[in-house]
Every structure is written in C-alpha cells, then in structure tokens.
C-alpha cells in the first residue's frame, strides 16, 4: 500500500532538495529524537540560522519527515511501497535512498513508541509470595490455618501499584489450574490456525 501525501506535505518536504544529504540525515535524527522525547523549538532556530532560512521552513521540513516516517512505520509498508510513495516527490536518487534508509533504520523503534499510545489496562509486573500459618486470633486459639499472602506488582502508565492479597491452599491450586489452562490455549489448533492465517 502506498502513502498518500497531501500537496502541503509535498511542499514541506520539497525543502529537503535544497540541502545536502548530511543535513537531511541530521533532520532525520532530529525527527526521531522528537518522537522519543518531545519537540524542542530551539533546535529549529539554531538550524534556521545556520542554513539561512526561516525557522518555519525548518519546522515544516522536520515535521514532514516525521510524518513520512511515522505513517510508514504505523502501516508497516514494505521497502518497495515506501520507495514508490517517495517517488512522487521527484527527489534525486540519492535522496530517495537516504529516506529509505532512514525509514528502515528507525522503523522498529518508532513502532514501539507508537505502541505505547494504545489504551491500556494495568499490566503485570511481578509477584511475590509468602507462606503464613495463623496460630491464634482473639476469637479462637490453637489454630493451624495455612495461607499464602501475595504481593502483586502492576504497572499502569508508568506508575507502579501494589496489591496485597491472600488465599488458602485449595484456592491456590484452583488458580494454578485455571491459569495453566489459559496458557495452554495458545497451543491449540484453533489458535495456531488463526495466528498462521492473519498476516
């Protein structure tokens, strides 16, 4: 599938033909850095002064490049499709190769950044357990009541939460059985067939 670029977008990217490949490489690096950490307008001003153009032009160039890389990564388009999409810009052979290399080098990382934008539930981080035996309480002496105390660590949006839970031996065995069944599901023919056929 091809990337469809709007006229405005093509215009922004047009600036890249007016600079040499080292600069394009630098813009690519800036684009990925902005994806990782957020934008920093001061960089635009610095580059604008060096290249003797307005900082708007620099910003559009970098944003155009960013969009090219993120859309390509999101859709996971193939090398050939990327090259064909970029052809419409009428760039030089050298520039096309440079853009393709930029795409391939950074695709994996961009995809993992995009993956973090999805809606998420708290996710499992780790689990600690402890074996306890209750010997007595205010209402009953001489007990032998085994229990397993569990500390469940969960991550949500970067925050860690902890839940303290307790269970008895019978329920523990039941839980293990249920969750082992869950694990076994991925190995069934049904799931295997689906995984094989969705590509």
């Amino acid at each position, binding site marked *: 599938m091809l990337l469809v670029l709007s006229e405005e977008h093509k215009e922004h990217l047009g600036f890249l033909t007016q600079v040499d490949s080292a600069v394009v490489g630098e813009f690519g690096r800036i684009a990925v850095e902005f994806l990782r950490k957020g934008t920093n307008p001061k960089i635009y001003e610095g580059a604008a002064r060096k290249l003797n153009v307005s900082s708007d032009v620099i910003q559009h160039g970098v944003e155009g490049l960013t969009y090219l890389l993120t859309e390509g990564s*999101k859709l996971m388009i193939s090398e050939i499709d990327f090259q064909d999409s970029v052809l419409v810009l009428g760039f030089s052979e050298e520039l096309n190769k440079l853009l393709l290399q930029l795409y391939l080098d950074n695709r994996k990382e961009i995809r993992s950044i995009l993956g973090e934008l*999805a809606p998420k*539930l708290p996710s*499992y981080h780790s*689990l600690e357990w402890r074996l306890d035996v209750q010997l007595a309480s205010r209402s009953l002496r001489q007990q032998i009541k*085994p229990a397993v105390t569990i500390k469940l660590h969960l991550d949500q949006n970067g925050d860690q939460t902890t839940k303290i839970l307790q269970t008895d031996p019978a*329920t523990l065995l039941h839980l293990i059985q249920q969750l082992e069944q869950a694990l076994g599901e991925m190995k069934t023919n049904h799931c295997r067939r689906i995984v094989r056929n969705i590509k």
Partner: protein
Amino acid sequence: MELSEYVQSGLQILADSGCFSPSAYTVLLQTAFQSLLNAQADQVALDHPVLKHIDPTVLKHCHAAAATCILEAGKHKADKSAISTCLEDCKFDRERIEQFCTEYQKNKDTLELILGSIGRCPLHLTDASWRLEYQIKTNQLHKTYRPAYLVTLNVENNDSRSHPDVSFSCTMEQLQDLVGKLKDAAKSLERASQM
C-alpha cells in the same frame, strides 16, 4: 476457662432445678446454641411456652451466661473435662453437665468454624478468570499481531462489601512467570505440610 461473676451467677441460676425445670433447661440450652450458630436466629425463641413462667430478666441473664460459656469453651478448644469442671463449680448436676457436653460436642465444629472466621485479613482471592486475545491493530499502530491475556482476580472480604476485582493484562511470558511463582508457593506449601 475463666468466666466472669455475671456469667457464673447466670449459670448457677440455670443449674437450679427450682428455677429451670429439666425441659426448660433443655430448651434454653438449645436456644443458646442456636442463637450463636444460626445466622437467621435474630428472633431467638426465648418465648417458648416452657420458658413462659420464668422472669424475662432472669431468662436473658441465663441465656447470656450460657452463650458466653459456650463461646469461651469454643475459643479455648476446651475438652469435656474442662467444661465439666467449670459447670461443676457453678453447681450443675451430673445430668445437666452431660446434656451440655453432648450438645457442645454436636456443635463444636460449626462453632470453631465461625470463631475462626472472625477477624481481619487482606483481601481474599477466590477465583481467577482470563481472556485470550490476538491483537491486530490500534489506531496508532497497524499489524501488531501478538497474543495477550487479560486476567481478572476475584476478591472478597469478611465485611461482605463488594470489592472491585483486580484486572490486568499480560503477555504469555508474563503469565508463565506468574504461574511459575504460584506453583513455587504451592510446592513449598506441600513441603511445609509434610514436616
């Protein structure tokens, strides 16, 4: 087994066949056990015909004394001889002691269960449910293609308030880690029980 003055005096009245005829004693004894063990026994049958001629204040005193005695015996897991000694000190005759001990023996297990369940503890895990999904795409990222599990742990507590379940997502590796750790706990439980 130590009983307070109030309880001892109540028991002494209960032991007196002048105040409590044998049938009245039987009814009060059974009522005392029922009021402790039966969750629905709100309106305790202290208005049984056999008990009608006894002063209500006295009835309540003796009922409370009997119930306290039963609870203390349960709390300390008292054996027959401890209970007998205690009742003897309150002037119970052989027959009434026997009756008490028989009734106690019948209800001992339920009593211990109830006493054992009183108390605070962390949220208690009762069950786990799970869902396996295969992720295909998000609006920000297409072709993600990976399996994921959504696990919900059902919890409850003594206070019968409903607690929100603990839900979380995990990958296959994380679920394997979770199950592995639970199995370690189970193995160590088994070893501890054989000591």
